[in-house]
């Protein structure tokens, strides 16, 4: 086998320029795919991380029907204490769940005593929230008493930066929140501006924050209620199976009408970024298809030319007793070797490129987020499968010319001019 490889390499090097150009073309295709995968994968992972760790969480559980009407922040679709207890029970029993946090979502009027505007609020239990969204504090700027660990205390409010700027509200200022509860009664409370939060993309990216106990007072809840339970997993890669498990467990709970009491969604169903992520995946697949086409056409071209240029040689091989199978194997090995050399070069240059991109950091803006830093990387499994695909395509591309070579009649091939 080593000898066949040696002969194949020698045959490839017989036409150095052609082999090098073809190999270069395949190498560029592989390089393009590796760099695109690394950059787009890093962008996707970072954006998903921003969305799930900074405000949305990985999984959310609501009362059935809430998500379809979440734009109006319906207070009549909150979960009561019993419902929350049932959900907690399911979450406690699942070993893959790392943390969960209750939230109340509400809309309110924000006043600085001279101007009034509307605001969407996320009322949180700060201790639990930082466990579910560990990066939530990264987007916040706090006053003297605040911190990323503490986040927010009773009587405090954190306002989106654009809103604070527009309303000329500064850290430490007092503001008034006026909200209507589900029965239609209006209530108002004073809050101290404890922090400013950067706006991020997504449905919950422009919300302010208050303490969950303040929301209960503001909405005059007679019994504790919550809007949603945000869930974080120990391993994000286990999202799909854990989601399926939790969905199945929650489906056991029915409301008075005998229908499911809860609904559960992953971040994918809640964030519009999921569609962008899918577009990125689609582009990645397109790049791979282009690369496969490059490999297929270039190797097919080289191998066809190789067979036509070596007809007499094929006749000689056959005349001295080389079986059709071995002639075919020789040409397949040439195609395979060309693919192997190209994929090796592509991988080496691609990994070097990724290393350079990590040394010379790439910063970019996305939506209203500035100064985002990409950390491109590519997994070994992706490199492995990419290499396997290129090698398989290389062999497939060589199949027709190799078959043609193996079927040549020696007497005709020897007489070929």
């Amino acid at each position, binding site marked *: 086998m080593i000898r066949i490889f040696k002969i194949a390499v020698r045959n490839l090097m017989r036409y150095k320029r052609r082999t090098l150009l073809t190999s270069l073309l395949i190498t560029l295709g592989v390089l393009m795919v590796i760099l695109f995968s690394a950059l787009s994968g890093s962008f996707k992972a970072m954006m998903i991380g921003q969305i799930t760790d900074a405000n949305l969480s990985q999984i959310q559980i609501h009362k059935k029907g809430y998500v379809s009407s979440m734009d109006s922040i319906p207070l009549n679709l909150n979960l009561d204490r019993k419902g929350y207890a049932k959900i907690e029970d399911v979450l406690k029993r699942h070993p893959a769940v790392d943390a969960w946090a209750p939230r109340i979502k509400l809309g309110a009027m924000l006043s600085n005593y001279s101007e009034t505007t509307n605001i969407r609020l996320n009322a949180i239990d700060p201790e639990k929230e930082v466990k579910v969204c560990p990066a939530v504090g990264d987007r916040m700027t706090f006053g003297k008493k605040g911190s990323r660990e503490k986040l927010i205390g009773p009587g405090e409010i954190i306002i989106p930066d654009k809103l604070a700027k527009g309303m000329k509200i500064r850290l430490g200022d007092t503001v008034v929140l006026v909200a209507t509860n589900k029965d239609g009664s209006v209530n108002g409370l004073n809050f101290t501006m404890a922090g400013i939060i950067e706006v991020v993309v997504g449905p919950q990216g422009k919300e302010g924050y208050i303490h969950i106990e303040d929301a209960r007072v503001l909405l005059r809840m007679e019994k504790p209620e919550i809007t949603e339970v945000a869930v974080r997993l120990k391993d994000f890669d286990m999202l799909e199976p854990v989601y399926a498990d939790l969905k199945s467990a929650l489906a056991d709970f029915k409301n008075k009408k005998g229908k499911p009491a809860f609904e559960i969604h992953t971040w994918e169903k809640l964030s519009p970024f999921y569609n962008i992520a899918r577009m990125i995946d689609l582009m990645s697949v397109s790049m791979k298809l282009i690369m496969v086409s490059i490999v297929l056409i270039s190797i097919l071209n080289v191998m066809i030319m190789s067979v036509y240029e070596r007809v007499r040689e094929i006749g000689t091989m056959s005349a001295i007793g080389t079986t*059709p199978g071995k002639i075919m194997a020789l040409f397949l090995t040439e195609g395979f070797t060309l693919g192997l050399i190209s994929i090796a070069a592509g991988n080496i240059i691609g990994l070097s490129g990724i290393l350079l991109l990590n040394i010379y950091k790439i910063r970019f803006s996305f939506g209203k987020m500035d100064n985002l830093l990409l950390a491109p990387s590519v997994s070994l499994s992706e490199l492995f499968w990419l290499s396997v695909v290129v090698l398989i395509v290389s062999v497939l591309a060589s199949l027709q010319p190799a078959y043609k070579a193996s079927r040549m009649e020696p007497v005709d091939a020897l007489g070929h001019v």
Partner: protein
Amino acid sequence: MALVEIDNISKNYQMGEVQVPALKQITLSIDEAAFVSFVGPSGSGKTTILNLIGCLDKPTEGKIVVDGKQVNTLDRKQSAVFRGSVLGYIFQAFNLFPVLTAYENVEYPLVMIKNELALKRKEQVLEVLEAVGMIEQKDKRPDQLSGGQKQRVAVARALVTRPKLVLADEPTANLDRKTAINVIRLMHDMRDKFNTTFIFSTHDAGIMAEAEVIHTLEDGRIIQSKQYPSSVQEGEK
């Protein structure tokens, strides 16, 4: 004992709608360790008869038995296997693989056909290269060798698998007279050394005189067969 038995073979080539006869009802036998030449002008059927004996082509009629095996009924793969195990080939244009050295060209049949172990391969290759006087040039590629040297390597390649029969189609046509005589005498020596049957074709009167058996072909028929005792020839040289 006959190594090759040809029984009433004919070969026609189809040229458009016309059938062109290349060989007509040829019957002959060739003994083991013979040194045989087919001679005749161009188009007389020399190459065709060598191709038929060498299982590169099939006769239109008749039967060919080589080393006890009827070769005209073998399929493509069986023919290749038979060629690899019983036959050796020497070509007019040498047909060495240009990317391989002299050593590797000779080694090729052992790698691709015989699957011999590396140590045994080396021993066999060096033995035949030594026998044809090409041991010094073993690491040279064909483009670094003269015509005579290339044909010596081709002889070595044909002999390395220890075939019973070596077929050589106009092996000296691309060589000057002196080199051509040397190559034919080398083939003769190899016959003596390895007891291999050699059949070659030529239209050169000087070369044909080196053969022990001469079959003269004309228009696809054998018009004359002559046998010269080896000792007589040696004396004439």
